[in-house]
């Protein structure tokens, strides 16, 4: 069996997370919205416990955590949920970056259809957007700035601290898609200036199908979000529907472990990284994205003289890797992230992404190198 190196697509589930999920599937199956007997009350207690566990990771308040089906839904709620406020206030200017996930870029396309103007910031060759460009783009009618924390294809950490300084004392909503960084890089998301944060369960060793939008209150007020769905009033009216208690409890457990084991996980990923970097350096690969800002569990490289599709196929019995994000890898569209970073179409076609975690076993790097050299003939 190949070693799984596609943890940015999805991570394996921590054993204790699986245990918690099973408990609420099999035994404690109550509905958190029916706290009229012990089944419902216990389900509600589990949901509130999970809410606290998620909030603790970024030092938010428990009541600021809105459970959703995942980061895609959270992004949609954060962006489309502000449309009414923007129209009502006559603020129709939105800013985002060229390297966002499609779950951000496509809601922005919908906002254009609704009459908003979207400004997309370019990125530099190092994989980061320039905060000064953001500062220059701000207008009196800017409603929303949406910037990701960590890019899903390159693992590059974005300059959020600088953005926080730029947006200080400005009445502009700031949304951060933190699907790839929540529970991994802890400090950035604790900045109180960030209004909205999207997170995902299955990127932090939790279950698929659950995530959250963290909506920080300012002056005791949520950002002016409107729900995208109606019926039931759950999650403070912002996300109605029966909560999937097993998934929510699993997300809580995953968040707890992310906080508790952060340092240990980073160390394991760094150790793994050294071997990966050495292997690809020996092959003359060029890293996409600046190493100093890349999280330790991701490596995106272009391999001169080797097409990525060929490489992935040739390596499939040794390591399981991908060429781009999971959500676009089936479309055969060249990576919009690497293209935005200024890579030539040839270099984009030669790129592969490796992403691992603290549970990843050893890889036979010598075999990886031998296979890739063989592809060059």
């Amino acid at each position, binding site marked *: 069996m190949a070693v799984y190196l596609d943890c940015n697509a999805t991570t394996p589930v921590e054993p204790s997370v699986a245990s*918690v999920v099973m*408990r609420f599937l099999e035994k*404690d199956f109550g509905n958190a919205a029916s706290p009229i007997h*012990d089944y419902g*009350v*216990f389900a509600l*207690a*589990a949901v509130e*416990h999970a809410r*606290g566990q998620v909030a603790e990771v970024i030092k938010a*308040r*428990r*009541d600021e955590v809105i459970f959703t089906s995942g980061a895609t839904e959270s992004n949609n709620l954060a962006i489309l949920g502000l449309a009414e406020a923007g129209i009502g206030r006559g603020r129709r200017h939105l800013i985002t970056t060229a390297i966002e996930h499609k779950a951000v870029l496509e809601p922005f396309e919908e906002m254009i259809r609704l009459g908003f103007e979207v400004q997309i910031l370019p990125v530099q060759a190092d994989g980061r957007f320039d905060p000064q460009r953001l500062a220059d783009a701000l207008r009196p009618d800017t409603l929303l700035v949406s910037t990701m924390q960590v890019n899903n294809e390159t693992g590059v950490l974005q300059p959020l601290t600088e953005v926080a300084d730029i947006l200080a004392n400005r009445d502009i909503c700031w949304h951060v898609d933190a699907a790839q960084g929540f529970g991994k890089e802890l400090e950035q998301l604790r900045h109180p200036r960030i209004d909205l944060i999207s997170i995902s369960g299955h990127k932090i060793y939790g279950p698929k199908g659950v995530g959250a939008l963290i909506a920080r209150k300012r002056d005791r007020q949520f950002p002016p979000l409107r729900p995208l769905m109606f019926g039931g009033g759950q999650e403070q009216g912002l996300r109605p529907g029966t909560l999937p208690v097993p998934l929510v409890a699993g997300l809580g457990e995953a968040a*707890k472990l992310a906080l508790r084991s952060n340092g240990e996980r980073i160390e394991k990923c760094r150790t793994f990284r050294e071997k990966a970097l050495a292997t690809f350096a020996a092959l003359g690969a060029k890293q996409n994205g600046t190493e100093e800002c890349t999280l330790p569990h991701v490596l995106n490289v272009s391999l001169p003289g080797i097409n990525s599709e060929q490489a992935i196929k040739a390596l499939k019995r040794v390591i399981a890797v991908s060429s781009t994000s999971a959500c676009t890898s089936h479309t055969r569209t060249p990576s919009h992230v690497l293209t935005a970073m200024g890579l030539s179409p040839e270099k984009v076609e030669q790129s592969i992404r490796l992403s691992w975690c603290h549970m990843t076993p050893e890889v036979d790097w010598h075999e990886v190198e031998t296979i890739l050299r063989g592809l060059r003939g």
Partner: protein
Amino acid sequence: MNEIFRELEEVTVEQYDHHDLPKWLADPVLMVARTPESYQGKEYLIEILVAQVREYDVYAEAGCCKWAYDHEDIKRTLRWLEEER
């Protein structure tokens, strides 16, 4: 395993000594914290109890929304700990 019980003891003592947790509620919680061998396999409930004690607020039910835990929550969790849950 004992780490979560130690945490329960610490947070309970802190809430009793410096905040509003009453003695009649602190005592049974401390009893749980100091007899971990009786609650093996119930760590998930202990975690919930730690959070409830940490966020204990006499006036949890006073506002329009309940965003703290009160004595009813803690009593209920103590009851669950004694049951087959």
